[in-house]
């Protein structure tokens, strides 16, 4: 029996054409080009851009959204989203603080805080999967609840992080600590997505929910697991940021960091539709957002203008993803 392939016709007139063709086919290509062009531009208009002092600032802009984006991308791939992760970010360092105040070693306090974050993720997942509330609504609800809980527990005022200096450095206070955490998270999650059953089943769940279930995949476990993952990453990021800044602020994180993380994922090439996505792309998306923010700050552009630029960047990235994606899939219209 011979079933002929559907013609995937695409003429590559020459070598250069073929190379360009291969490059366009590479998922993260467009966003990497954008990141490089932006860096060249900002260095051209301001020679202070590529100095180590400024790179440190850029890395701090990038790290938080990159780590959280690792979770959001997994959720987007399996067809869900978590709007509440920014509030988990704010709550986690307070939980750690209460733990250390109660006399626990800081490592134990952090682990307990992360377990609590995982539980919050499990609740988000349970309500979404078992009670069938769309995750957009579930996590909008928990967003408000968690915000209220954090404000109540903290009486609305910041506290010191405390702990030893070495621990503080490890957890984000030393110049490049947080971006190293971000690279580690990206490396691990890229591996999980591309090289493990968990990643494959996450893609299958988002790509064909019923089909995945018919193949015997426990789709509820996959979704709930990715909610737990996202919350834990959100809590970890909150703890890292608190150590970087040296204080725990009940208003830290919030929807700003959550939307930056989702934007990083989307700009990096993860569609909201589910079934596909990239962790590396999300890192590059976070880099683009960090470079934009820092570059325009150096140029003296204010925060209001920055929002306009971010919005335009998201739209441009989406439009190019959709159209380059079409090219990638074989030139069809």
């Amino acid at each position, binding site marked *: *029996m*011979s*079933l*002929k*392939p*559907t013609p*995937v016709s695409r003429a590559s007139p020459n070598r250069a054409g073929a190379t360009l063709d291969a490059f366009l086919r590479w998922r993260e290509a467009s966003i990497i080009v954008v990141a490089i062009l932006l860096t060249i531009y900002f260095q051209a208009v301001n020679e202070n851009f590529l100095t180590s002092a400024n790179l440190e600032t850029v890395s701090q802009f990038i790290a938080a959204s990159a780590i959280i984006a690792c979770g959001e991308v997994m959720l987007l791939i399996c067809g869900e989203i978590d709007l509440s992760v920014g509030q988990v970010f704010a709550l986690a360092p307070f939980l750690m603080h209460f733990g250390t105040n109660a006399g626990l070693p800081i490592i134990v306090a952090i682990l307990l805080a992360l377990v609590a974050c995982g539980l919050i993720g499990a609740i988000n997942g349970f309500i979404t999967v078992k009670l069938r509330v769309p995750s957009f609504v579930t996590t909008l609800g928990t967003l408000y609840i968690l915000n209220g809980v954090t404000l109540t527990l903290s009486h609305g005022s910041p506290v010191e992080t405390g702990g030893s200096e070495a621990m503080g450095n490890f957890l984000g206070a030393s110049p490049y600590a947080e971006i190293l955490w971000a690279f580690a998270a990206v490396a691990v999650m890229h591996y999980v997505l591309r*090289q*493990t*059953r968990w990643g*494959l*089943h996450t*893609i*299958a769940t988002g*790509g*064909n929910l*019923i*089909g*995945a*279930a*018919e*193949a*015997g*995949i426990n789709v509820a476990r996959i979704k709930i697991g990715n909610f737990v993952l996202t919350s834990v990453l959100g809590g970890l990021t909150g703890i890292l940021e608190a150590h970087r800044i040296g204080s725990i602020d009940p208003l830290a994180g919030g929807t700003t960091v959550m939307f930056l993380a989702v934007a990083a994922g989307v700009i990096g090439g993860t569609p909201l539709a589910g*079934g*596909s996505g990239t962790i590396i792309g999300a890192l590059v998306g976070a880099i683009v957002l960090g470079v934009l923010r820092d570059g325009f700050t150096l140029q003296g552009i204010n925060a209001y203008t920055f929002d306009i630029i971010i919005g335009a960047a998201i739209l441009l990235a989406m439009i190019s993803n959709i159209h380059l994606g079409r090219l990638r*899939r*074989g030139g069809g219209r």
Partner: protein
Amino acid sequence: MASALRADNIVKRFGSVTALDGVSMHVEPGEILGILGDNGAGKSTLMKILTGYQSPTSGTLQVHGQDVVLRSVDHARSLGIECVYQDLALVGGLSVAHNMFLNREKLRRFPPGMLDNGEMRRRARQVLEDIGVNIPSVDLEVERLSGGQRQAIAVARAVSSDARILLLDEPLAAMGAREAALIIDLVLRLKARGNLSIIMIMHNYGQTLDIADRIMLMQRGTVTYEKAAAETSVPELMDIVRREYRAVRSA
């Protein structure tokens, strides 16, 4: 010898809808059973119960003479029951190889838990070759394949393990004459390898009589007719369906 698979008095209700109202059936080792019936007769529901995807409201199942309660698709699979669902259950964005090993991926011994993509590719190619399906590359994403190729991948996936009972839900649906012929040919070749029982849900009477050893007709959640394919004919089947239709209309 015990039947390969046997169901007794299966009832399945979805709220107020009774999808199956006391269905009993069996398939013998090496036999092809063709199930015909109207839309909504309960054929897919029966199939999903036989694969452990849904559990019956009441009724019992036997696999090779042993009473079983199927707890999950994986459980049924461990007993040698494999199936191709009406919707194929393929994931468009994943490669042919990944689809063929969906939820029973090959893993490397080291590092533990890492997918063994090379092994899955190799085995996928081997299975496709064994059953004579020609796909340009096992790395192609399934969404780029034609309907017939997808159907073939779904069948190949089902037979790639050591399936002893194969269930096919409308394997020829939405398929051109040439592609349908290829799938029929594939099913007959699988049968010729021996020892495999096949249950096929079909819509075309002629095709069913060509391929099946025995025919079962389902209407409104019950089995209304059953006969060896050699002892019945398309006009006879048409006649029964027409009679039933008239009875329902006058009721």
